């Protein structure tokens, strides 16, 4: 879907940071993607290959760390990880839970020369 746009965001944040350090090359970019976003790793890698062409990040490695969903129950305060469909407190059965992680879309760091 919109992995191109997401990748554009990753790349511009990375290239901005690289330019500030007067880098000549970006070797790798680390990103964190939550399980509950609509981003697919494979599509993101494909977009990355296309968009890095003719930039100092050409041939850089995109390291994707995925984060599974974690919620806290509003009724009993239990914290639990879950998939998309079972955001239900395993302790007390409540559905009133606050999502603590799982929707991340973040550039963590770059490695540059």
């Amino acid at each position, binding site marked *: 879907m919109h992995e191109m*746009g997401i990748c554009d*965001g990753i790349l511009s944040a990375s290239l901005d940071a690289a330019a500030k350090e007067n880098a000549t090359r970006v070797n790798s970019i680390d990103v964190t993607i939550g399980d509950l976003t609509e981003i697919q790793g494979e599509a993101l890698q494909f977009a990355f290959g296309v968009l890095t062409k003719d930039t100092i990040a050409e041939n850089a490695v995109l390291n994707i760390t995925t984060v599974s969903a974690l919620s806290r129950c509003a009724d009993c305060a239990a914290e639990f990880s879950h998939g998309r469909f079972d955001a*239900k407190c395993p302790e007390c059965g409540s*559905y009133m839970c606050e999502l603590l992680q799982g929707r991340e879309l*973040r550039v963590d760091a*770059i490695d*540059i020369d």
Partner: protein
Amino acid sequence: MRVDIAKGILEKNDGLAAENRRMFAESGVFVVDLMASPGAGKTSTILATIAALRDRYRIAVIEGDIASRVDAEKISAHGIPAVQINTGGACHLESDMIRRAVATLDLVELDLLIIENVGNLVCPTDFDLGENAKVMILSVPEGHDKPYKYPNIFQVAEAVILNKYDTVSFFDFDEAEFREVVGSLNPAAPIFPMAATKGDGVDAWAAWLTDRIEAARAGESA
């Protein structure tokens, strides 16, 4: 050399969305982002909502489409201001597009702004536009199993409209199962069965929207 960035990829979109939200609140306009598949009945729902609420609220519409202005023309034909955004192939709206579109509207003269997002059950969920509420429409012919395939959109929506309900007897749509899955994904979201083109069920949806608009106003003046 390693350089820490720790920056949200959607930071730019989120930042502009926050500015939009502030601008909408200052102008006293309530903004709904309507999301659905192509053809689920977004434009029909907007027309039904206009018919139900135009005596009470001053309404405008933003039409997001990959191309064409047919939807905007349908809205304008009813004497309601409509701004067309052609995304030029992009599969969702972003907050800067909304910013540019509202520049052509007099926000202070509006109470309700409805945004028709691009027909897509995936992308719009990740993009904050600065709206007060995201609402999703599922139409009966799409099937009751859609929440299994596209859970995110059912999670971010504050209300779900089940449109084309007039056709429910022609499809093997299992409403009980649909309600159960949506309920497990998003227990707080009401589900409104509706036939937008016929007007059935529009009252309950319009009443919910009115409550939300009035609550937002009470919050602002409090």
